[in-house]
Structures are given as C-alpha cells and as structure tokens.
C-alpha cells in the first residue's frame, strides 16, 4: 500500500513535466497543428485495417472492371491499374510507413545512443575507435549506403528497414557523442564521480538522459526523412514489393499511367509530403521545449 503510494508520488512530478511540455508545445500554432496531424496519423495507422472502405484491395484482390477510375463517390482517390481503391491503399500505407520508419529509427537509436554515449564519456582510445568506425559510415551518402545495403540483402521491406537503420545510426552516435563530451564536464557528473558512482551508471544514469533532447528532436525529424527514404527505396524497387500498398511503391508504379491518371501518383505523393512535413515541424517544436533551461516560463 505505502509502496504504491510512493510510486504514485514519483509519477506526479513527471506528469507535471509532461503537462508543462504540452502547454509549451501548444504555444506555437504550427507545432500544435503538426502535433495534431501526427496524432491523427498514428490513430489512422492503428485503425486503418478496420476503417478503409475496400479492405479487400489492400493485399491480394484485384478489380479489373474498375481499373484507372478517376476519383468518385465510390473511390475517393480513384483506382489504380488493377482497379484497387487508392484511398484504401493510401490510408493503409500510413500503417506501413509509420511502422517501418519507427522501427528503422528505433534500431538506429538503439545502436547509436549507447555507442555515442560511451565514446563521449570514456574518451581516449575507445572514443577514437568508435568514432572512426562511425566516420566510415558517415562518408557515404546515407541514401546511397541504404541502397547498397538493401540491394545486397535483397529487396524487401524488412531489409529496407535494416538498411536504413545501418546507414542512420552513425548520425545519432555523432550527435550523442558531442553532447556527452560537454555533459561529462558538468558538475553533476563530477559530483557523481566524487560519490563513487560506477562509470556505467554515470553514462546511462546521468549523461544519456541529458544528451537525449537533441536526439529526440533529430529522430522526430528523421522519421520524415526515413519515410522518404523508404519510399525512395521502394520507388527503386529495393523496398516494399507489390502488392504491398507502400506509398513510394505506388508512386513508382503510377509513373506509367501518369498522363491519363493523375490521381494515381498525386495522392500517395501527397501522403508522403504531408507526413514528412508534419514530422519536421514537430521536431522543430520539440527543439524549443526540450531544453530544461529555456522552458522555465
């Protein structure tokens, strides 16, 4: 009983922090809008299999009778060359894009954060080794590296995710490392050392939580970038494979019909555009509020 009370008490200040953050987020109209759209996108992704008007068009079934129909009351965004409802496929695509982007960024973070934190906090030879490896990865343009890895692993959505994670983590490592180098000079880290706190605890208990803000900002912006990269890979035939309703793949296939069926490429393209935009805006907004010193008021 008393124990659960303690847990509640320790959650309360965190709720206060979250409320303050939301309050600050809400102050900027653009951030408020992007946050709203992101939440809408996530909700859409969660419920998309149940709300789309033509769930049968998502994977297997085709409907040649209605092929390449313009937008209408029955097919809001028209149909593609196999007569599938583009609206249903675009909505369902949210799920695919968000999921792959989150997994890819998450993987990159899982690799990147500990490596960067250890490099920055330890310094010396460990730092040199980790950062030189990072430099090797960073010396390739990320899209090119992702294409190479995806091509090597074989074309599939899972491999595309992996390829993106592998080409993305060095950016987080470098970001975290830079932060960690400055954070480790802070007095609270010195204080922890004076107390006798073991190094691993200093890194993950003190340094990482204080370096994480810019990484969260970067990651939320990268979600947009990753969605774009997945779309690019799919467009090149290295990512999602037909009939998966992935936006990039849809744009890719639509090229052949662009002259007579504008809706085919416009709607998936618009979906990519909006998603990337709102994640970037959200990242901008987060940057403003995540610094504990500037958010007092």
């Amino acid at each position, binding site marked *: 009983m008393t*124990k659960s009370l*303690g847990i509640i008490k*320790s959650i309360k200040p965190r709720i206060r922090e979250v409320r303050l953050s939301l309050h600050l987020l809400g102050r900027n109209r653009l951030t408020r809008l992007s946050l709203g759209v992101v939440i809408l996108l996530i909700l859409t992704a969660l419920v998309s299999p149940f709300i789309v008007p033509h769930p049968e068009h998502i994977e297997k079934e085709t409907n040649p009778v209605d092929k390449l129909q313009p937008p209408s009351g029955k097919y809001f965004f028209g149909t593609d060359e196999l007569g599938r409802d583009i609206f249903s496929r675009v909505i369902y695509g949210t799920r695919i894009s968000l999921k792959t982007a989150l997994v890819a960024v998450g993987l990159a973070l899982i690799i990147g954060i500990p490596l960067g934190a250890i490099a920055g906090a330890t310094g010396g030879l460990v730092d040199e080794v980790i950062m030189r490896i990072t430099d090797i990865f960073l010396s390739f343009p990320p899209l090119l590296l992702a294409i190479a890895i995806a091509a090597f692993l074989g074309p599939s959505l899972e491999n595309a995710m992996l390829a993106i994670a592998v080409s993305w983590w060095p950016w987080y490592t470098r970001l975290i490392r830079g932060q960690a180098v400055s954070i480790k000079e802070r007095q609270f880290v010195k204080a922890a050392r004076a107390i006798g706190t073991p190094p691993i605890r200093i890194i993950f208990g003190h340094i990482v939580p204080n370096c994480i803000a810019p990484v969260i900002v970067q990651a939320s912006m990268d979600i947009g970038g990753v969605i774009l990269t997945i779309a690019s890979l799919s467009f090149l035939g290295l990512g999602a494979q037909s009939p998966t309703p992935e936006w990039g793949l849809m744009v890719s296939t639509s090229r052949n019909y662009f002259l007579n069926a504008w809706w085919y490429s416009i709607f998936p393209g618009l979906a990519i555009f909006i998603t990337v935009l709102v994640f970037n805006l959200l990242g901008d907004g987060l940057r403003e509020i995540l610094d504990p010193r500037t958010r007092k008021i």
Partner: protein
Amino acid sequence: MPKNILEVKDLKKYFPIRSGFFSKPVAWVKAVDGVSFEMQQGEVLGLVGESGCGKTTLVNVLLKLEEPTSGKVFFDGLDLFNMDKKDLRRIRKHLQIVFQDPFWSLNPRLLIRDIVGEPIKVHTELGGEELVKRVGNLLEMVGLPRDGVYMYPHEFSGGERQRIAIARALALSPKLVVLDEPTSSIDILSQAQILELLKELKKSLGLTYILISHDLSVVSHMADRIAVMYLGKMVEYGPAEQVFSQAAHPYTQALFAAIPTLDTEGIDSIATIEGNVPSAINPPSGCRFHTRCPMAKDICSQKEPAMVRLGGGHTAACHFINQK
C-alpha cells in the same frame, strides 16, 4: 591531541600542454606546485585565493577526481594515492564535496529523491520506501520540506539547490566535506543562510570542512585556520584570528582591502591589486606575487621566499617578514 584527518605533503599537479596530437608536452601548467598542510578532525580550513590560483585543482586531486603529479595525501591515516579501486570507493563515502554552481551540480533530469539518494544507492542496500524516508530526513536536516523528495531541481531557487547539494554530500555521514565556493553563485541572503546552516551542521554532526572561496569575508565566518594560495603556492597559512588581525603577506592584505563591507566609506577606501594573475605556464621567477606586489624589490624576482614562522602556527612566504 586530536589526530590528523588529512595530511597533504608537497602535493603537485602539473597539466601538460601539447602542441600536436601525440607529441610530447611542450610546457607544463603548474596548477598546484608543492602544497602541504594538515587538518585535524572537526576543524574548518579556509582555502582562499583568486580564480586560477589552483584551489579547485587542489581539491580535485584530493578527491582523486584527477591524478596527482607527485606528493602524498593521507586521509585518516590511509595513503589516498596508493590504494586499490575497492578501497577508494569505500573511502569516498567519508570524503564528500559540495560544488560551486548549484545549477549544474544537480542532474536536471532526476528527481531530488534520486539525486540525494544516489550516494545511498551506490554504497548501501537501502531502497524503496526506506530510501525515500532517508532522503526526506536529509532534506529536513538542511531546512527543506520533505515534499521536496518528489520534485525536480529546477523547481528550487539557487540557495535551495545548494541545500540539496549539501544534503547529498551528507547522505553517507562523511568525515570530511569539501565546500568548493559553496556560495559564490547565489545571492547574499542565501549565502548567509547557507553559511549558517553549514555551521550548525558542523556542530551537530562533528564535520570537518575545507571551505574554498575567493572571498575572505565568507571564510571569516567559519574557518579555524586559513590558507591563502597564489598561483599554485601557499603564501600564508595560520589560525584564522591571526591571519585576520595580522595578515603578514602583502597578497593577503590586498585580499582584505578589496572587500566592500558596511564599514567601508566610499569607493576610495577599497583597494585593488594591479594587473591580472600571471599565467601558471611560466610563473614569475622568485616570489610569484612580485609582478603585482606593491612592496616588491629586486630580491623578490630573484629568490623564492621560504615560509617564515610567525609563531602560533602562523606562517607566510615573503622576504620582508621578520622571523619570530
């Protein structure tokens, strides 16, 4: 006779200056250059000097946050520079520090429970409700409400944060607490309160302090003994009353003259020391203070003055002091 809790013998800390990446050092910053002193249990040593005089480096070395270049430090009879990691960690319990800047000495992402509780978690098995209770007690001891346990550092003022830092330092009932400029970045009312608190805690817990400050008037409230440092060297050392009433070294005198107090009549009655602290890379020859000293003569730049005994444990390093 009470035993010495701390003995520092000819402690030196030089930082190398390298010109290339892997190259050999081209010069040395002599941050601490041969400092010796002793402290007895329950006493307060005031360590005074301008920034750059090496007092913070001295403390970092004492706490083994940095490796010394040479010299010895005995804490409670144990050689601090000659012990394995396990022993060192045990010793850390008894050797604590309160830093200058209360804004960066507390991890902004942690609850006070976790900040003050950290040393307890690291060194004991205590956890859960017990830990919260301990932290609450500590907060009360430093004059903060128990509810503070579940708050973040930014919800407190500068003076209150410094109290939290003190609570953390006292969490494991240390023997020696180093106070590194504990009041120099908070305002004067909080300063008075913190000094008062430190005094009370010392009395009730039998603590030993090393109090570091650039302000002699701050030290005056607490110290039993005062050590004045200039450019890595100790220039004057002695019982507080004697140093205050008969400051022997011109540098100590200058430090006193610079403090504006309520008795100071107008701007002309405070004095400054001309010039800046010279670089510790190539410190001035002879007496290191001679470049700024109003009494400097030829001998000062040629010969380094030895510590002169003035009686009663009061010593100072200046050529113009008559030995008693």
